């Protein structure tokens, strides 16, 4: 016999037997009939079975949350595609609609060091309502070398000799396909801090901005493939470049005869 507290308890074997018999005696007559419960089970599982067969016969193991998230992602992606890519809208796109065809360009400038006189920079592409393409390459010549301050000008032909504090930027445009300009292209270069506005239909050699941040916004207009339609579809191109090391920047834009730029004229763009 084992003493616990102030009372006496039976040995383990008897104790275990007591617990076992007590548990078996508890609710001894309780034996629910599965018949009625089976009806309830059938009733409660019937709806979900039908739903599963009808809606998702091929995805029985995916949870509803996963499917809902996938649907939301798919719809969002489709909406973005339709709104961002103009030619997905079809050939009868309205002028207003195509105006939204903003072209993304770089947000940060390329490195300026060691690229003296080289064609360099990010390419961007515009797409017209009939599949026309306008490709542009932002290029620059850094006449000052890796270390502009106090360096001598290493390149020439850019019209910026003796202006060692300037870094020159060039916007080279190459039109391809059957695109022809029907009105004067308008280029705007705005130094927002000074309010100075450069350009329009002229060569802006030697122009310079004295701010480290120069924002050039070019608006290009062209007609569609069918001249008779005479549809002018402006496309806004926003190009933002941040200056390098506080040096001045300059925009050079050189429209050619007939307002057609080709790769062959690239060299002439350099003032």
């Amino acid at each position, binding site marked *: 016999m*084992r*003493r*616990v*507290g*102030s*009372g*006496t*308890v039976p040995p383990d074997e008897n*104790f*275990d037997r*007591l*617990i*076992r*018999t*007590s*548990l*078996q*005696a*508890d*609710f001894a007559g*309780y*034996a*629910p*009939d*599965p*018949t009625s*419960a*089976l009806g*309830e*089970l*059938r009733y*409660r*599982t019937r709806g*979900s079975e039908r739903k599963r067969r009808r809606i998702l016969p091929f995805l*029985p*193991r995916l949870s509803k949350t996963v499917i809902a998230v996938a649907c939301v992602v798919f719809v969002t992606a489709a909406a973005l595609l339709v709104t961002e890519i103009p030619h997905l809208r079809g050939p009868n796109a309205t002028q207003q609609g195509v105006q939204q065809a903003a072209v993304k360009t770089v947000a940060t400038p390329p490195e300026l060091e060691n690229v003296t006189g080289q064609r360099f920079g990010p390419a961007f592409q515009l797409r017209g309502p009939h599949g026309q393409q306008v490709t542009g390459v932002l290029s620059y010549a850094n006449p000052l070398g890796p270390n502009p301050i106090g360096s001598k000008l290493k390149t020439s032909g850019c019209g910026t000799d003796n202006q060692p504090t300037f870094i020159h930027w060039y916007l080279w445009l190459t039109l391809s396909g059957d695109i022809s300009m029907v009105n004067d292209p308008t280029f705007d270069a705005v130094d927002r801090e000074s309010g100075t506005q450069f350009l329009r239909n002229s060569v802006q050699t030697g122009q310079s901005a004295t701010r480290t941040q120069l924002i050039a916004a070019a608006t290009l207009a062209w007609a569609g493939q069918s001249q008779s339609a005479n549809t002018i579809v402006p496309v806004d191109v926003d190009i933002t470049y941040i200056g390098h090391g506080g040096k001045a920047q300059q925009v050079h834009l050189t429209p050619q005869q007939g307002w057609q730029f080709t790769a062959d004229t690239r060299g002439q763009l350099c003032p």
Partner: protein
Amino acid sequence: VTTSHLNSTVGMVMSRARRREPSSLPAQSLEELFVQHYTRLCQLAVRMLGDPMRAEDVVMDAFLEVHRVVDRLDWQTAPAYVRRAVVNRALRVLSRATSEERLVDRAARERLLPAEVGHGVDQQELSAERDRVLLAIAELPPREKVAIVLSYYEDLPLAQIAAAMGCREGTVKRYLSQARARLTERLGQVTS
């Protein structure tokens, strides 16, 4: 499988269940599984919960949970799976029971004690002793109570209790040891 065949199969299983004969073949459908094990699981759950209505709800919910995964259910281990679902739900119900509900349960059990006492003196003493044991078991913490019921009522080995409760065998041993100590202490005090 035709409806008539299914009904005959379910009927056979139900008659076997009424005779409380163990089924030699594992169930091949949820309804078969239900008919084979519903009564037994209700009897297990009622000893954990102390309330037939709650016990039947818990068992039904467990089978509905099984229905959600019935496509990938292994029918050989399905009974153990359902039992684990019942134990989990019973534990949840026990853990959520407020102290007020526990007091009400205890009072109900205590009120029932005189009514269940037998006629003879020995029978009366035996019944009173069992009731004291059941009352002590009812007052155990939920996990200890479930371990005691699975061990003493279901006669499950430690490994299966651990599987049903989702813990390790060592943990089950600890639950059983603590439960025995509590029961011993309470029943000892009562005996004294």
